[in-house]
């Protein structure tokens, strides 16, 4: 039973990991842009959450909303002012640009907030639990999984059904040709980056509520995001969700066996999957 509980908890954590990967994967799927600064933006979102927490009415969980809106705006600006200038056949300029941005962000945060470990305090919610078929589960982790599933499903439906979603899919297919339909792909990219950042910001806040963070956590966050996206198979939507689940379960099961292992076994599982199926899990099913 204790193992079942561990696996269920791994799935709950995996939902959050999937969400960490979603922003990165979405940006890559639409624009073929790898935003190396995504991890540090996730941490910056958590700092913004800490800052806004005292002014958040009703419940601390609601701090997600203003942070997501701010991240959307910052994402659009980032794309308009910086990344759109270095678009082209060569991906190296984008990677160098966002890599530089990551360094500036990380050190800026150390300078501003110090290197202390922090977390976002959600009050009693963090310690509340319930019994489900004999399993002891936390309310917060279940809530977080529900938020992750909700965001995956909403994004999926929105991309399928809305006018903007259709333009984003068309732009992802061929950004040169959408111009012939009167669509400025740079604007579509700005919206897509705004969304990617908003999703990452939500993930950042939730990570900070479940655990803790320092200005240096960005590298870990980015690693998780990369692993989720690659395990899922680049650009595969629900593959990413599966990728998050695999990482979450691997990590918690391994922690049970070897409490000092940290994230190591998650990374080992990642490498094994990469060796066995280089195109990710979704790629393995597609074949």
């Amino acid at each position, binding site marked *: 039973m204790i193992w079942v509980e561990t696996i269920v908890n791994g799935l709950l954590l995996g939902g959050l990991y999937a969400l960490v990967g979603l922003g990165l994967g979405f940006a890559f799927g639409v624009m073929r842009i790898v935003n190396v600064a995504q991890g540090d933006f996730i941490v910056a979102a958590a700092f913004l959450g800490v800052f806004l927490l005292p002014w958040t009415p009703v419940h601390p969980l609601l701090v997600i909303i203003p942070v997501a809106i701010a991240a959307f705006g910052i994402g659009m600006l980032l794309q308009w002012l910086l990344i759109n200038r270095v678009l082209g056949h060569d991906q190296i300029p984008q990677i160098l640009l966002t890599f530089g941005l990551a360094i500036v962000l990380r050190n800026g945060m150390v300078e501003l907030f110090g290197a202390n470990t922090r977390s976002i305090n959600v009050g009693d919610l963090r310690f509340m639990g319930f019994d489900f078929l004999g399993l002891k589960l936390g309310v917060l982790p279940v809530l977080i999984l529900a938020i992750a599933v909700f965001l995956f499903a909403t994004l999926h439906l929105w991309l399928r059904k809305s006018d903007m979603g*259709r333009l984003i*899919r068309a732009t992802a*297919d061929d950004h040169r*040709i*959408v*111009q*012939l*339909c*009167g669509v400025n792909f740079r604007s579509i990219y700005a919206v897509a980056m705004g969304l990617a950042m908003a999703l990452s910001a939500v993930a950042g806040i939730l990570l900070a509520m479940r655990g803790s963070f320092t200005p240096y956590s960005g590298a870990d966050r980015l690693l998780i995001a990369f692993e989720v996206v690659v395990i899922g198979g680049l650009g595969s939507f629900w593959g990413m969700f599966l990728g998050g689940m695999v990482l979450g379960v691997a990590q918690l099961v391994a922690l049970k066996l070897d409490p000092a292992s940290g994230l190591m076994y998650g990374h080992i599982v990642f490498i094994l999957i990469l060796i066995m199926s280089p195109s990710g899990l979704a790629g393995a099913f597609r074949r």
Partner: protein
Amino acid sequence: MSLLRVENLDVFYGDFQAVRGVSLAVDEGRTVAIIGANGAGKSTLLNAIVGLHPQKRGKVVFAGADVTSNRADAIARAGMTMVPEGRRLFGTLTVEDNLRVGAAAGRKGPWTLGEVYRLFPRIGELRHMPAASLSGGQQQMVAIGRALMTNPRILLCDEISLGLAPKIILDIYRCFEAISATGVSIVVIEQNVGQACAAAQYAYCMLEGKVSLEGPTADLSMEAITAAYFGLDHA
């Protein structure tokens, strides 16, 4: 006054000059053909006119405005668009979604989903299929439909008969009469001289980046076209 006027256009790929001092004019409601062998610079010329290819010198005037340095999306919203070579549909989108993307140009006019399906009944039947799953001829119809959905004043068509069966080419060219009847100007680029000259009232022949011959299609003799097409004069 011409709806589209190109003056002395040079187009480059890096150091290579693909189009050399081309001038042409298309009047409102007319159909013009640009013919020439593979590599004559026809596609490059079209890409430069619609704003997809930025490396150029000279002047492109559309509806009285200089659009030489405008972006392709702004030009499309102003009423000039292209059916690109190789169709270039949004492969993961359904046929209908492909057409709806064309409507994003936000131009009012006669072309709606219903009108496009009336012109091409077959793609109406396939409207929920992914565009990539269609045959070449059907994809070409969707590509033309997508361009029509922007309600253009002028439609540039790049090698629409390339790789299609003769019967399908005939079907597609027959539709051009209906499109032309709504007042849309059409420019067709073709390697297939007979097809293009039958559809157009005026033709330009390109050779090695230059216009080697031009005139009303009724006045152009096959010998003159052959000479201009293959460059027999200086062979």
